[in-house]
Every structure is written in C-alpha cells, then in structure tokens.
C-alpha cells in the first residue's frame, strides 16, 4: 500500500531535481540561470551596510562544534556547507559567491549569544544558519531581533514562537505529532498511549499536544501514563516496568541525547520486542543520526515520525544523499535536522533573488511564499508565520540503522506554532 503512495506524490519535482543535488562540474550546464553581479550594483542591493561586495556575500554559520551538542550539530554544519558550495557552483546569489564565517557556540548558551552578536554587529553577515537546541535559539533571539538579523533555524521544535527574525526550516510540534498519532490509530488500531520524555520544554510541550490530540480529537483513545526524566538519565527500568503493567498499545517516546541509548537498550533487555509491535514504539526524537549511537539492533522495529528520512526515494533526495556522501564520506548518515539545515541557504537564496536585494527587511518580506521544488524532502513552501509547509512521514527502523518509509501525508501540513485547542 505504502509503496504505491510515495512515488506518486513525489513525481512533481523531478524536473529540476538534479539542480539542487548536482556538484560543481554540472553547474556550467545551468549557467543561463546564473545572475550576473553587474546587473545588481552593490549600492542598490545592500542599503544597510551588510557584508556584501561586488563579488561576494558573507553569511554566518553558528553551531556547536565542541561540547555535548557537537555530535548533533555537526550534521547541520555539513549540510549548510554543502548547500553553500552548490549555490556557489551555480554562480552564487545575484552573481555573488557566498563566503561564510563559522563560529562555535560550544554547547553553551551565553556563548551562542556572544557569537551571534559578533556575527551581526562586527561581521555584518547577511544571514545566519544556526542553532540547534531551543535553549540556544532562545539565547540568540533577542540579539537577532535587536540587530535585525536573519536566522535560519533547522531543528524540529516545540513551537510557541514566531519571530520576524527567524525562519524555522524544521517542523513545529503539531506538524510532527498529529499526523503520526492519527496514522497509528487508523492503521494499527492503537487506543492507549504511554507518553514518555526527557524533562525540558520540547518533550513537555510535544506531549501536551499529543495528550490533547489523543483525548480531544481521537475517539475512544486515552493516555495511560506520562513520565519525564532528566536529560542524561540512564535508568529506565522502573518506567519500563510501569509500562508493562499498564499495557499501552503505543509507547510515545521523546527521549533525547545519551538517554536514548540507555532507554532502547533497556527496553530490549526487558523483553519488549519492537518488531512484534506489542507495544508499538513511536518516537519523534530519534533520527538516523541518533540510531548510530543507539545501534540498529536496539532500534529495529520502532517507528519514527519525521518529515525527512535518508531513504526517501525521490530524485531530489538521491542526488542530495550522493552529494552529501561525496563531500563528507561514505559512512555518513543524514537525519531529519540535517536535511532541514540544508534547506536554509537555499531558502535564503530564493528569497534574496525574489527580493533582488540582500536587505533584511526586503528578504523577510520576499521569504513568505517562497517555494522550493528541489528540496530533498520533496516540495516545501514558506508560510507567513515563518515556518515551512511540509509533509509528515512515518518510518520504521531497520537493522541497518535506516528507516523504511511506511506512511506520508497526502498533502503538505500547515505549520501552526500556536495551536488552538492544544494549549
């Protein structure tokens, strides 16, 4: 059933597919698309003193490459650098090559704020691709709003935010949660849910939305338990025992970071075989990146709800995965956030070209409604609330650490960072 569905819905974008994915050598073929710098005098397209010259434009990359978050954020840095290289190979933006200044947030929120200020005030970058955790985004937000910068933020997150200075290229919570819950209810007949998460704002907000949806919008369904554990927690045996007593149809797990490894190993050790689906394990926090740490054998059979999986079978994605591996090595895996980070430079490029200017205010205005047909996840569009319209997909983890896509929504899901009825 599902196999039929996917190629059909992804048929559209193939026409321009390899443009996004193609590396330097094919760029010359597409030269007519390139815009020439002399058509866009610097004085006209940069009226606010950003770092734009006659043949370059400078942007910032602000992620943690040291500290505990480095393992998660490295993929985003790699994706952004790939996108920049590809854009440059196609002739850059308004005839200008993109140069980047990379700063290390060092997994430390004050450092993120300091570096964000440095990029905007000192380096005058035209946009910033960066941040990963909500805490780091919250730390830089006042800096971007005060200095009128533009941040492209890649991570799926809890919503409840709509800054004029941020484009959210990942999903907000409702986009990631609702379709997945409906799917597990409709196709697997699941009625009872056990919610579990790490103890901070994203899992708590996500589970709140999940609970409201289960209780108010799904007939005959109920939440039988809800538990939170501190970040870094590694003892899940007591909650696993509780789960076995309650016998839920679905364990809805939003455990993050190092805790994931302990949780899934202990789940397996306790005799819960996820391949038998009793109970079903559905997560929104484990991408292909995390499976590398958890181990495919511990994750096999679990379902994850994302907008992107590395295994997506469409021309855009095949080209993207190939280019990514060519640049960063065969062994690399690509998770949901990595793909969202890859969209950042492309969305910005589209907005700049639509505006015919690098000025932040003009780019912000032009950004709304920008479509990207070359996105590895398929087709995306920027909503006026600065989030992306995108599909929700469910994948099932395989032994080799990849997901097999078993479901995707027929249409793009509208982003709704302040969902009514879910507060």
């Amino acid at each position, binding site marked *: 059933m599902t196999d039929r569905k996917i190629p059909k819905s992804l048929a559209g974008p193939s026409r321009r597919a390899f443009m996004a994915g193609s590396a330097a050598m094919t760029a010359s073929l597409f030269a007519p698309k390139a815009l020439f710098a002399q058509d866009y005098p610097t004085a006209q397209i940069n009226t606010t003193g950003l770092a734009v010259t006659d043949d370059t434009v400078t942007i910032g990359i602000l992620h943690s*490459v040291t500290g505990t978050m480095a393992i998660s954020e490295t993929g985003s840095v790699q994706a952004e650098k790939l996108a920049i290289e590809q854009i440059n190979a196609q002739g850059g933006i308004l005839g200008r090559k993109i140069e980047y200044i990379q*700063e*290390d947030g060092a997994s430390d*929120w004050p450092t993120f704020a300091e570096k964000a200020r440095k990029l905007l005030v000192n380096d005058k970058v035209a946009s910033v691709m960066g941040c990963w955790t*909500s*805490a780091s985004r*919250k730390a830089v937000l*006042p800096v971007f709003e005060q200095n009128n910068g533009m941040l492209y933020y890649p991570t799926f997150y809890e919503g*409840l935010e709509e800054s004029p200075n941020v484009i959210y290229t990942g999903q907000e919570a409702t986009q990631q949660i609702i379709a997945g819950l409906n799917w597990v209810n409709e196709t697997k007949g699941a009625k009872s849910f056990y919610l579990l998460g790490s*103890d901070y704002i994203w899992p708590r907000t996500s589970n709140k939305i999940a609970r409201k949806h289960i209780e108010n919008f799904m007939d005959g369904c109920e939440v039988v338990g809800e538990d939170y554990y501190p970040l870094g927690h590694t003892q899940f045996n007591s909650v696993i025992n509780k789960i076995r007593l309650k016998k839920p149809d679905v364990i809805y797990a939003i455990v993050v970071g190092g805790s994931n490894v302990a949780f899934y190993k202990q789940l397996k050790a306790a005799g819960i075989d996820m391949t038998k689906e009793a109970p079903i394990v559905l997560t929104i926090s484990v991408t292909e990146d995390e499976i590398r740490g958890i181990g495919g054998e511990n994750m096999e059979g679990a379902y994850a709800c994302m907008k992107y999986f590395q295994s997506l079978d469409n021309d855009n994605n095949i080209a993207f995965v190939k280019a990514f591996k060519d640049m960063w090595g065969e062994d690399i895996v690509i998770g949901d956030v990595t793909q969202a980070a890859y969209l950042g430079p492309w969305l910005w490029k589209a907005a700049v070209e639509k505006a015919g200017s690098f000025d932040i205010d003009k780019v912000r205005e032009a950004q709304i409604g920008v479509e990207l047909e070359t996105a590895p996840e398929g087709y995306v569009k920027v909503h006026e609330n600065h989030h992306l319209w995108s599909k929700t997909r469910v994948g099932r983890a395989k032994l080799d650490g990849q997901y097999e896509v078993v479901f995707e929504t027929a249409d793009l899901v509208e982003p709704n960072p302040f969902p009514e009825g879910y507060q």
Partner: protein
Amino acid sequence: MERSSNRLFTTQDILGFAVLAVIIFIVLPMALDSFRLNLFGKYLTYAFVAVGLVLCWGAGGILSLGQGVFFGLGGYCMAMFLKLEASTPKNTAIQSTPGIPDFMDWNQLTALPWWWEPFNSLFFTMIAVVAVPVVFALIIGVAMFRRRVGGVYFAIITQAFAAILTILIIGQQGFTGGVNGITDLRTLHGWDIRTNDAKEVLYFVNAGLLFACLLIAQFVRKSKLGRLLIAMRDQEDRVRFSGYDVASFKIFIFCLGAAFAGIGGAMFTLQVGFMSPTLVGIVPSIEMVIFCAVGGRLSILGAVYGALLVNWAKTSLSESFPELWLLGLGGLFIAVVMVFPNGLAGVYAEHIAPRLSGLFGGKTGAAKSPKETPAE
C-alpha cells in the same frame, strides 16, 4: 613582616590599582567598539567571582568549586525582576494566562508563584542579589566549618551543591525556565538594556562596582582578619589554640566571596540579557577557579587580569579556530600551571617588580615580593 605591609595601601598597591583603573575606565572604552566593550564587561563580571576566590582560596585556603552557585543565584534574582518587568499583560497577550513569564505559561502554571512576587520590586531585588547568595553561603558555611570540614572535602561538597542547584533549576522548569533559563529580558525600570548606549553605561557601572569590591578585598587583606586568614591557611590549629574562633572567620570570608559572586551574576544578567543553568553548574564553577589560578590566587588584582585574559583568549581562539580552540585553551592552562604556579601575579612579583623597583631605586617592591606559599 615589614611595617609597610600593615598600611592599607603601599605605594606598590596604589600603582597597581591605578594601572588597572586606567585600563578598565579609559583604555578599554577608548580602544574597543561597543560590541567588544560589552564582551569585556561580561568578562569583568567573572572577575567579581575571581576576587572572592582570592580571598577564600588564596588567603583563606578554602577552595570552593561551587562559586557558580552564588554567581547564578545573584544572576537569577536579577533575571526574575527583569523577566517580570518584560512580562506585562500586553507583551504576553497570546498566552493562556497573560501577565506571567512565558515559560510558566508553557508549563501550565496559571498564577505567579508566591516567591516570585517580591521580585516585582527593584529595591527588594537589589538586596536579594547580595542577600540570597550570602544566606546560602552562610548555611553551607555553618554546616561545614562548624564541623571542621575543610580542604578537599569542602571542595567536593561545594561541587555537589553546584550540581544539586543545576538539577533543581532544570527540573523545576515551570518556576525557573529549566534548561533554557530566563531569557528575553528587555528593560530595567523602563530603561531598555539592549541598546548599545545602555550596554556602555552598564559597563561603567559594572567596573565601578568591581572597584568597590576590590577595595573591600584590599581592606580585608590588610586588616587583622586578612593576616588571621593567612595564618589559618598555613597553620589552622595554632590559630585555634591561640583562642580564635576559626570557623567564624571562615564563614565570614566565604559569605563575602558569595556576595561578590552574586553582584557579578546580577551584572552578567544585565549585560548579557539572560541567565541560564549553564552558568551555575560544575563546569563554570571550575572555570572561575581557573581565572583565579591564571591571574594568581594570591593577588586580588591578578584575579581581574586572569578573568580578562582567559576569557579574551577563549573568545579570540574560538573565533579563529572554531573546531580546535578548546585544545589550545587547555594547553594554555597546563602551561600556566607548570611554568607559573602563582599565575600572572607570580610572574609580576618575581620577574617584573624587582626590576621596576631597581629602576625607581625604591624599596617599595620588597613588601610584596615575599613568596607566600599556600598550604595546599
């Protein structure tokens, strides 16, 4: 020792204070743009902690690996006030319960907790910035020093406090903002603290407060209390047998260090614009000890230079080598500890001061150069 060291200021001290004052009040503001000046303002907030550590550790021999607790408490007090001011019903109209801080709303709180209420008052907040860390230090101090817990055991216990407070803040996110901390602070009594002008004013306020703390520290060092502290550090039992109440002196100096740290934390919140648990935990607490060690744990002025130098190195190394800078910084620390065990102040006292005094022909250098070898 020489009589000269009993005076509040030797010529050498006056020179040291004057040089530092010129650097902080004149050279830095003139040489740096607004962004860099704000960064140095941030570094100087750590200097408050480092000065407190010189008194506790360098003079008193009390190594605290939990100064981040006090820095954080001071910072959180200030952040609570600023957050309440930023959370007007108008600004938070989209929330289920307008008028309370946004993170409370996300965590389904529907009313402001009672212990947040007093932080609507700036006056109360300014007292709390000092009082809360001091009360906390008093409790720890009484519990530890009265039982004669000292040395390594004390260091480990303070570290445990840092861990406990971090976990508490993260766990109680409905009341504290959790991992994200308290963010999006805007105005202080209607005065927008995010503008460049405000940041410059705050830099000078910060520098002024730091000098006030330095003067208090200098006074303590030169008073009878200061000499008793050094005596306790080197031979605690003898001081006790001489009839002094050792524990009370230790508690006092520990509380003074906490008060300095609290002021530093509050100034940090004002200048950086938010407070989060990453500034409370074990890692920042140990970093603060490093600032003190690099500057020289025996010298209050050295502590300021240490805080400035280490943080400046951190910033510029991470800007130039985003993926390798931690290695470089680590190497720098090892080098300092191996080659200059008494830090920058030690280098000055051993190599530069004798030459200077030779140049001026005075004997002023003699008072400062005797090697104060710490007990541990």
